[in-house]
């Protein structure tokens, strides 16, 4: 089974030690990504999406730490590796694209050099070979005049181009898995679609699997094979994208989908945009019970206890008492 999976995450727990006590932004998250597949990790701010991604890279700094779980990338258990072994994996087998390309690129270095850097870290190539490869990569990500752009500094490029550079860096070593943490959020809407298309193109070309983190359900519908919905550090639903949108099983997923504005619906002053009342509970106040119950329209007595993650039908998992018979 693991042979066909690019990534297997089991019961991942990441905790932060704070003066007020331990908090768990990621609390027992499990999911898998098939080789070459696209999985979207969805959730609102504070649901633990980014911490999950950084945990997968093992880039959680103190006071945070990965407390439990297993992360298997192509059969390698990442949590057992030493830091220097992990450095061989990062960038080569596992790459990450960040939300804000302006700050994720070094402002004092030319972009060509920054792309060449990955190659120089992981492959024994000369500076010149690496630079030539960097220019090729810039061309592949659709940057016109790549030889000239390679000599530009990040601030001389547009937001879309900078994100293209980030994609080039991530794809430089043909990684097995690319983590993209809201890569289109900081971009103009018109540029978002282009960058999204490029990302999927590059992912297909390199044969990488893609974990796409977003809160934009429109993007999810467009690219995802499977969707993992995260709420307060836990997976509340996991399903194939089409089935998730057709028949959401968890009340939270249902509410999320309902809150996407429907542009085709007839206009009327009575029609209001659906929203979910309240906010994600503070991680410090999570007692027992379903974490969504205070905001859930279908909450009932059983929700005082922790709901288990069940599989009501093949290929779908839900963490809700409504689906426990």
């Amino acid at each position, binding site marked *: 089974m693991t042979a066909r999976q690019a990534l297997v995450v089991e019961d991942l727990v990441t905790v932060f030690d704070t003066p007020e006590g331990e908090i768990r932004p990621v609390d027992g998250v499990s999911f898998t990504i098939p080789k070459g597949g696209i999985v979207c990790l969805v959730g609102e701010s504070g649901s633990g999406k980014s911490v999950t991604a950084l945990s997968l*890279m093992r880039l959680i700094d103190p006071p945070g730490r990965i407390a439990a779980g297993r992360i298997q990338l192509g059969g390698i258990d990442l949590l057992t590796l030493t830091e220097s072994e992990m450095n061989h994996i990062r*960038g080569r087998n596992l790459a990450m694209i960040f939300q804000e390309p302006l700050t*994720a690129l070094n402002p*004092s*270095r030319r972009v060509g050099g920054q792309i060449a850097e990955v190659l120089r*870290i992981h492959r024994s190539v000369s500076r010149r070979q690496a630079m030539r490869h960097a220019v090729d990569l810039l061309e592949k990500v659709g940057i016109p005049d790549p030889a000239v752009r390679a000599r530009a500094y990040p601030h001389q490029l547009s937001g879309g181009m900078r994100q293209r550079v980030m994609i080039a*860096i991530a794809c430089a070593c043909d990684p097995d898995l690319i983590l993209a943490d809201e890569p289109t959020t900081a971009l103009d809407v018109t540029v978002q679609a282009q960058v999204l298309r490029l990302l999927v193109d590059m992912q297909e070309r390199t044969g990488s699997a893609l974990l796409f983190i977003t809160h934009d359900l429109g993007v999810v519908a467009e690219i995802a094979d499977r969707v993992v919905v995260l709420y307060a550090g836990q997976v509340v639903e996991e399903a194939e994208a089409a089935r998730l949108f057709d028949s959401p099983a968890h009340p939270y997923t249902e509410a999320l989908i309902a809150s996407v504005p429907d542009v085709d619906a007839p206009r009327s002053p009575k029609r209001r945009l659906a929203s979910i009342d309240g906010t994600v509970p503070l991680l410090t106040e999570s007692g027992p019970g379903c974490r969504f119950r205070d905001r859930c329209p279908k909450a009932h007595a059983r929700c005082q206890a922790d709901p288990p993650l069940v599989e009501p039908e093949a290929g779908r998992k839900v963490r809700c008492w409504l689906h426990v018979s």
Partner: protein
Amino acid sequence: MARAPSIVASRRLSSTAVTFSGTILVVMLLAALLADLIGPHDPLSIDPNRILESPTRTFWLGTDELGRDLLSRLMHGARVSLAVAISAVAIAAVVGVPLGITLAYVGGRVETLAMRVVDVFVSLPEIFIAIVVLAFAGGGMTPLIATIGLLYFPQFARVSHSMARSILVRDHVLASRSLGAGPLWIVRKEVVINMYSVIAVQASFTLSFAMLTEAGLSFLGLGVPAPTPSWGQMIGTLKDYIYINAWPVVLPSIALFATVLAVNVLGDCLQDRLNPELRR
């Protein structure tokens, strides 16, 4: 729309000040470098018949208490002042910058403790420490440079430490780590490269302090031993003859004052130019 007039005025002023300061510094550097070639006299040859003279045709800037040519001595003095100050700043930077960055990278209790020690160093009165150290180490160029260098390394350590801390939490450092970059790579390619400008500004200010410290120590007789001229030492000796002829003591004072001022103005200008918030 229109800029406040005061800003326009101050900018115009600063550009003349910069030109002026740059000229002074270039003249001083040339004088120091070419002292042997273009100096009109031997700075050490004495003439008992022509002591403490005002400028004449033979001695363009007059003579000192032993009848030595002041112009030549000023030029050789510039060499000592600048050489000591520049070497001392280099030592301070080479010790302080790696220390600051390393502590910022290591973090934790080691960082806190070591930076407190550095703070203690900063709080000590510089001249006092220098006098104590030099009294034991003896005079001469090398102890002087080493002492002044060690006096100023804590400032470099503090500046580079706080700069490195702010850079290390930036996204591009995280991005670099996500690509498998090791600690040395990150320090070189992500941290140091983004703090050159701040180090340059710190170096320029430290340079003027180092020149003043050197002059002060030479004034007290703890600098380069006689007969090698240095500005501080010339001031220290010639002040005793101020009632006979005030002219000779004024010259090295002006040279020191002008050079330190020039370095400061250029440092200020550098800071303005490199600070993105003040640019434009």
